[in-house]
């Protein structure tokens, strides 16, 4: 178990880690997630005793990493961002050196080195010099070094960087295997990886811990409504006409597909023109309602075909973007949580919220709101135009 208490690391006036506070329980896989420069590596370096913290403490199984470094470090295997390899040694020599450093008894040394070599599949290159190995193999040698002696806690800093897809899958498999006997902490900026492997995610942004939960809970927290994606062979104006009469749809936004579609974050429909006359639309339904059937009927009644109709869940990407792209992240996240409980909020208020959350999209949001003057209300749905030009083209199509 690792307890991180009020950890601060300053480089001069730059704060790399800002009052981090969390506990790592035994026997689970933890994922450190955050954009580049968020402080993931620094935190890991402090946890493993490579760097000293400006404030705060790290307890490894009750041993303070600074006060009892030797005792605490015995419980940790660490693979840093750049594997710490001696290029002039062979794989076998290197691992034996690492085993001796980790104070593995002489009798067991040979066996444990062979065991990890088999585990990460580097047995066949054991007599080659490390400098002659490819990036993927070097990464594996570094991983072997971290796993060597099977310490209780294994900390891996971006373990799959520079590997090919097959190797990535192998390493993920290995991490899952390890988690049966060990606590594994890994860092990554790749969401898919973290979601697939980890039991628990810690999202770090600008040195602060902005979220800590299971991947499912994180997605649930943000997702106050599910999204429906449809594809149909019709113009956007036509889609709007059809959907206008469907109850349960909050706000509908039609955007031009050309200039990077902003994905819908509120209850709304986003339309996107495909190449061959197929239009793609995302519909955000109100919480607790399932409008799929109604959408299907509406299209059927108008004798239009739906090429696709599927429910899409809020992805971890959305959570990640939401949490890491703003200074007032924790507030925004808290507001999101509250919002989930308020079902009947009006679209206008949400648009304002969205504006606060995503300042970089100010332009498009403002357009959307100014377009709100023309809002026509029909059967509970509100319409917002974002791009007049696109609509003219569509009108032409009609």
């Amino acid at each position, binding site marked *: 178990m690792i307890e991180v208490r009020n950890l601060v690391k300053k480089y001069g006036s730059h704060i790399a880690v800002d009052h981090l506070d969390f506990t790592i329980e035994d026997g689970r896989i933890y994922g450190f997630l955050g954009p580049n420069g968020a402080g993931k590596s620094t935190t890991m370096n402090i946890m493993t*005793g490579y760097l000293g913290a400006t404030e705060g403490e790290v307890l490894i199984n009750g041993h303070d990493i600074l006060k009892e470094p030797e005792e605490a*470090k*015995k419980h940790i295997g660490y693979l*840093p961002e750049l594997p710490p390899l*001696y290029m*002039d040694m062979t794989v076998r020599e290197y691992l034996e050196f690492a085993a001796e*450093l980790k104070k593995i008894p002489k009798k067991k040394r040979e066996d444990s080195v062979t065991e990890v070599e088999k585990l990460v599949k580097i047995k066949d290159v054991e007599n080659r010099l490390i400098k002659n190995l490819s990036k993927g193999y070097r990464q594996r040698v570094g991983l072997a070094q971290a796993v060597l002696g099977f310490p209780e806690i294994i900390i891996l800093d971006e373990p799959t960087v520079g590997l090919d897809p097959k190797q990535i899958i192998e390493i993920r498999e290995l991490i899952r295997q390890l988690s049966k006997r060990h606590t594994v902490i890994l860092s990554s900026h790749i969401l898919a990886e973290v979601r697939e492997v980890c039991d628990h995610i810690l999202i770090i942004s600008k040195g602060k811990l902005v979220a800590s939960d299971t991947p499912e809970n994180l997605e649930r927290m943000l997702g106050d409504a599910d999204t429906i994606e449809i594809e149909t062979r019709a113009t956007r104006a036509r889609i709007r006409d059809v959907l206008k009469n469907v109850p349960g749809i909050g706000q509908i936004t039609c955007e031009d597909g050309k200039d990077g579609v902003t994905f819908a974050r509120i209850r709304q429909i986003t339309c996107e023109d495909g190449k061959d006359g197929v239009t793609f639309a995302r519909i955000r339904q109100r919480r607790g309602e399932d409008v799929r059937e109604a959408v299907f009927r509406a299209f059927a009644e108008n004798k239009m075909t739906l090429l696709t109709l599927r429910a899409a869940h809020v992805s971890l990407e959305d959570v990640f973007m939401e949490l890491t792209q703003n200074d007032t992240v924790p507030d925004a996240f808290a507001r999101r949580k509250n919002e989930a409980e308020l079902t009947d909020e009006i679209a206008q208020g949400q648009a304002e919220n969205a504006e606060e959350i995503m300042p970089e999209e100010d332009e498009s949001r403002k357009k959307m709101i100014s377009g709100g003057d023309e809002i026509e209300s029909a059967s509970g749905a509100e319409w917002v135009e974002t791009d007049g030009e696109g609509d003219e083209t569509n009108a032409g199509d009609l």
Partner: protein
Amino acid sequence: MLAIYKRELKSYFQSMVGCVFIAFLMVFTGIYFMAYNLTAGYPYFSYTLSGSLIVFIVGIPLITMRSFSEDRKNKTDQLLLTAPVSLGKVVMGKYLAMATVVGIPNVIFCVYPLIIKSQGTAYLKVDYISILVFFLLGCVYAAIGMFMSSLTESQIIAFISTFGVLLVLYLWDGILSMLPSSAVSGLVGVLILLSVIAFYIWHMTANYVIAGAVEAIGVAASVVTYIVDSSLYENLLSNLLGRLALANVFTDITSNSIVDVTGIVFYLSIIAVFVFLTVQSIQKRRWS
């Protein structure tokens, strides 16, 4: 510690640096041995060694330059510092490996007095003591070089700075003769030295109080001493700094056959100080 020692020693011979150093030293000593002992018939091997001293000044930085700067650059220090080994042991492991590389040619040197003996009179006692002191001097230089290497990420900078320091120490006697000997200049010199020490304390601890206190107490003490008895300050600088001419202990043996035991203790203390400073400079890097 043993693991690091073995790895470092192996790496010195795999990367050829160790071999180059030993070969370099052997070749030069061989030339001097040929010229002084074999051709000219001078029976002291210690005299030959004093000629080889200049080789140390180039050779030692060569073996110390990579000790810590390479680790830092390749990030292999992450392996050493996150392993359950104390920093002191890491430093000692590396230092002992360097000392061993310095020691190997000295072991070979032990044959030379025997060659002289086989041809006539040899002064074995003087020769063997001079080889021992020569080795210790090498260890002192290595400790200085290791400290320099721990300060930088660049091997080149480590090499040049170590070379510079060793060269200044080598020429120290000449530099000292230019120092003034009056009491006032002695006081000024002491104050300058004190300020340097205070600045170093501040640099390491970032604590104004400690550094300021050291400076204030030191200044007060030296000024009071000066007022009470100014004759103490006469020739103080050259006496004080004269100790820094490290090679003097060695050259005393080679030229006058005088063994200065305090000098040997002095060597050992310098080694201890620089090993300690190396540990401190690495510790400091972790905290900044």
